Structures are given as structure tokens and as C-alpha cells.
């Protein structure tokens, strides 16, 4: 379960250029829920995702994930938490263009204690699932947009996370690729993972696949 308790995030706190990104946010997301986090650009969606992933800490309040106060985790434990529990799909995929698909996919596993064989097995499984195995040795920069998208999803899921966070995953995609992404959402749903998609893409609105919609504007829940 993910819980936000009176979370406020202020960038440059007590500085002249102070910016309130989130104001007194409270919500709960149960396990295996598929959640749509919607709101206009700059409303605080990405800040919510980064707080869940323990990439940043709130200014006030607490973020609790699976009964763990992630907002209180020391940095080294926050990194460990992300490695074990979080898969992240970024708006621009954030793939390493000079590495191959395989090398990109195994990135989250490189620092794990897994053997080379175990890493290989996990990567192969996820690349097969997202139909990118045939391109495993190709450099990412030579892939099409759809292939890059599949590679990014495979990378997010290779460590078998409980929670998948997708930040504007279709912002740079055409309509067909956006529809493809919805198919991946269904696959993730079937795996009983918690998925939070932050977007302002109307394609996702009113879609019955989402069990919960959290709407945010100017840092406040609507």
C-alpha cells in the first residue's frame, strides 16, 4: 500500500524563489491498483512519483510504502528500496543510446547480487515478454520509437518490482504507440503489480482499466 500523509513539497524552501509543488496531499493506493494520476503540466504529478520512489523527500509529512516510511529512509536505503520495489518508465525513456537493448535492460540488475546467468535469465524473460528479444544486441539509438518504448518497459520490469511508476509515458509517442502502451498496462495489471501512470494525455481518461483516478492541480488534490 502507498500512503501520503499530509505531504507538502516545497522546492527552495525558505528561499526567495520558493516553489510549492505539493500542498497537504493525502491519499492511499492499495496493492495491485492501476492508478491514473492526472493533471496539467506543472501540477505536481512527477513530484508525487519521485516521492513514492524515494527520489526526493517531502518538506512536511510522510510517504509510506508497504509499511515503510520511505520519506525517512537514508539515501543508501532509499536506493536499495528503489532497486527492490520500484520500476520507473520515463517520459523520454531515458535509455542509454550507445548501449544495446540487452545492456539497457540489465542496468537495474548490474548492482544486484545476482549471478551473470541469473541476470541473463531475467533479462531474456522480460525481453521476450515485451517482444524486443530479436533486437537484444542492437544499439538503442538505432531502434524505432515503439522498440525504444518496449525496451524502456522491459528495463522497468526486469527487477520484478511491486510498483511501476510511469511518468508521462506517451508524451512523445504517436497515437498507435500510445495505444500499444495501454496493452502493456493490461499486461502489468495481469501481473498484480501496482501501477501509477502520471499523464495529461486524454487517451487515458475514462479508461476502465484504472481502478483509481487521482487528479491534481497546482499541487492540490481535486
Amino acid at each position: 500500500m502507498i500512503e501520503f500523509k499530509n505531504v507538502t513539497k516545497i522546492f527552495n524552501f525558505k528561499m526567495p524563489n520558493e516553489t510549492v509543488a505539493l500542498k497537504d496531499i493525502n491519499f492511499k493506493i492499495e496493492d495491485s491498483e492501476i492508478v491514473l494520476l492526472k493533471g496539467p503540466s506543472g501540477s505536481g504529478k512527477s513530484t508525487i512519483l519521485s516521492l513514492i520512489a524515494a527520489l526526493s523527500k517531502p518538506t512536511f509529512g510522510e510517504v509510506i510504502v508497504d509499511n515503510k516510511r520511505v520519506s525517512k529512509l537514508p539515501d543508501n536505503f532509499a536506493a536499495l528500496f528503489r532497486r527492490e520495489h520500484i520500476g520507473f518508465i520515463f517520459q523520454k525513456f531515458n535509455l542509454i543510446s550507445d548501449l544495446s537493448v540487452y545492456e539497457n535492460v540489465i542496468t537495474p540488475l548490474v548492482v544486484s547480487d545476482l549471478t551473470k546467468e541469473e541476470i541473463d535469465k531475467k533479462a531474456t524473460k522480460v525481453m521476450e515478454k515485451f517482444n524486443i528479444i530479436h533486437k537484444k544486441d542492437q544499439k538503442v539509438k538505432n531502434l524505432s520509437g515503439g522498440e525504444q518504448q518496449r525496451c524502456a518497459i522491459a528495463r522497468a520490469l526486469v527487477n520484478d518490482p511491486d510498483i511501476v511508476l510511469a511518468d508521462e509515458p506517451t508524451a512523445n509517442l504517436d497515437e498507435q504507440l500510445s495505444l500499444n502502451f495501454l496493452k502493456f498496462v493490461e499486461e502489468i495489471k495481469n501481473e498484480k503489480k501496482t501501477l501509477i501512470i502520471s499523464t495529461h494525455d486524454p487517451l487515458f481518461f475514462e479508461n476502465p482499466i484504472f481502478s483509481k483516478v487521482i487528479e491534481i492541480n497546482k499541487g492540490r488534490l481535486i
Partner: protein
Amino acid sequence: MTILTPDVLAILILDFIFLFFSFIALILSFRIVLRWDITKSTPLQYSLEKESYLVATIIKYIFVLKIPLFLFFIFTLDKLSNVIPGAMCAAGVVNATVYGFYLLILKIINLYLFGFWLLLHHFDMKREDYAFVKIKFWLFIFIFFPFLIEIILEVLMFYNINPAKIVSCCGTLFSAAKSSSISSLMKLPHFLVVGAFYANFFLILLFYLLKRDFFFALFNFTFLFISILSLISFFSTYVYELPTHHCPFCLLQKDYYYVGYFLYIFLFIGTFFGMANAFIKIFIKRRISIWYNLSLIFNTFYVILITIYPIVYYIKNGVWL
């Protein structure tokens, strides 16, 4: 008159850098220990959590550098003996001012304190609940003062060394004929000193097998003193093959294959890890077996290395000194 060789300058510059950063660390440490409340989710607490990382990193690097710098300090003293009239080794330089002896003792004490802080920090970093943060920074506040005194004494010592003034050499300082507290130690019967040394090592071995933390630490503590005492009064004469030469510093010279560095490193590491279990047990209720093993290994290295000298001498000459 001040003596400013490149080595002394390097030490002094590092001292001032360490002092600057440790002052920052001290101020922030006070802020942390006085205002830390892990149950709170306020901006102050989140900011203290971030600061604790910064401060701990500063302290860690100061201490990690200070420990090997002790060897550089000894090396520098030894080197300075070439320019100070009368000094034959670091002993003459230590005794060239009234500060040298206290500085040396304080440096050894600080080595252990810095080491203990680093161990506590190591365990704190393994906990996700910041369990030892307050203790760690209280300990730093406590250590800061001997650390500061060490730097002051170091500056005073180098500032007051007069290269024009003749100093006593180690042969005079560590002579049984002289009437001083050191020379009275030289007069102790050898069987008593050597017996105490091996008995102490046997007790370390015994409590290693029994895994009794407190006694293991206690006898490592006494071993540090008894080892240095027996080194000065008995074993050193076999290293130098001279019955009248008792200097604990000449061992660091090239003539004796720098054996002193090995001996002191073995002794300090061995006794440090010997005491570490008892120290860390105050905070975590478990024994670190590897520290026991490290302690015994290094203490054994020390005992073997120092025992070789009288045995080899006896085999070669058929007599004891």
C-alpha cells in the same frame, strides 16, 4: 625558531584544513544532537537528516586521513632528526620541545578514538532507522577536543623546535643510567617484563577462545602498554644487538629495515580490533567475529616478529644480552 621542512608544512596545512572542516562539523553536530527527533516529519528534521550525511562524510574523511597521517608524522620526526643537532632519530625530535611527548601520546589515543568513531559510523550506515546518529555525533563532539588539542600541540611543537639548539639523543633519553621515569623502566628485571608480555598474550589467546568480549578488550588494552614497555626495556636491544640501546624510534630507520613500522602497525591494529568488540557491544548486541580474528592475527604477527630477534641473536651468538 620554527622548523618548516616540506613535510612539516604538509602536516601543518593538512592540520588547518582538518581544523576548518571539523569546526563546521562541530557546529552542525551540536545542531543535530540538540534538535534531532526521528519521529518528526518536519522541515527541520528532514534538513537534519540531510545534514547528518554531510557532517558524517566530513568527519569520516578527516579521520580516515588522520590515521595513516600518524605514520607520516613519525616518518617526518625521523627525517627531522637529520637537521636537529644531537638528534639521532625521532626520539630526539620528540624531546626537542616540551610538547613532543604529550603530542605523541595524544596522537596514539586519538588513533583509537578516530577508529572507534569510524566503526560506529559504519554500523550507523547499515541501519535504516538512524539508530546511532545522536550517539555518533555526541562521540564526535567528545573527540573534537582531543583532536583540537592534538593540532594545537602539533603547531606548538613544530613552532618551538629550534634547529640551532642541541638536543639529547635517544641513547641518553632511553638510558638505564639516567634518573628519569623512563630509565626506571629500563631497570625492571627482564624476566618480569618479558614474562608479563607473554602472559598477557596468553590471556588474549585464552579470552579469544572463550569469546569473552570484556576481558579480551581489557587484555588488549594492557597488551598495548606492556608491549611498548617490553619493546623498550628488552626486545629493542636484540633488534639493535646492543645491550644499552633501548630506543623505540630507531626501529623506524632504514638501518633496521623499517621494522618499527611493521611492529607498530601490527600492535595498533591488533589491539584496536581487540578493544573494538567491547566498544561496539555497547551499541549493538552482537559480536563481530572477524574483529576477534583480526586482533589475534595482528597481535600474533607482532609477537612472532618481536620474538624472532632474541631467538636469532641467541642462535647466532649463544648468549642473551
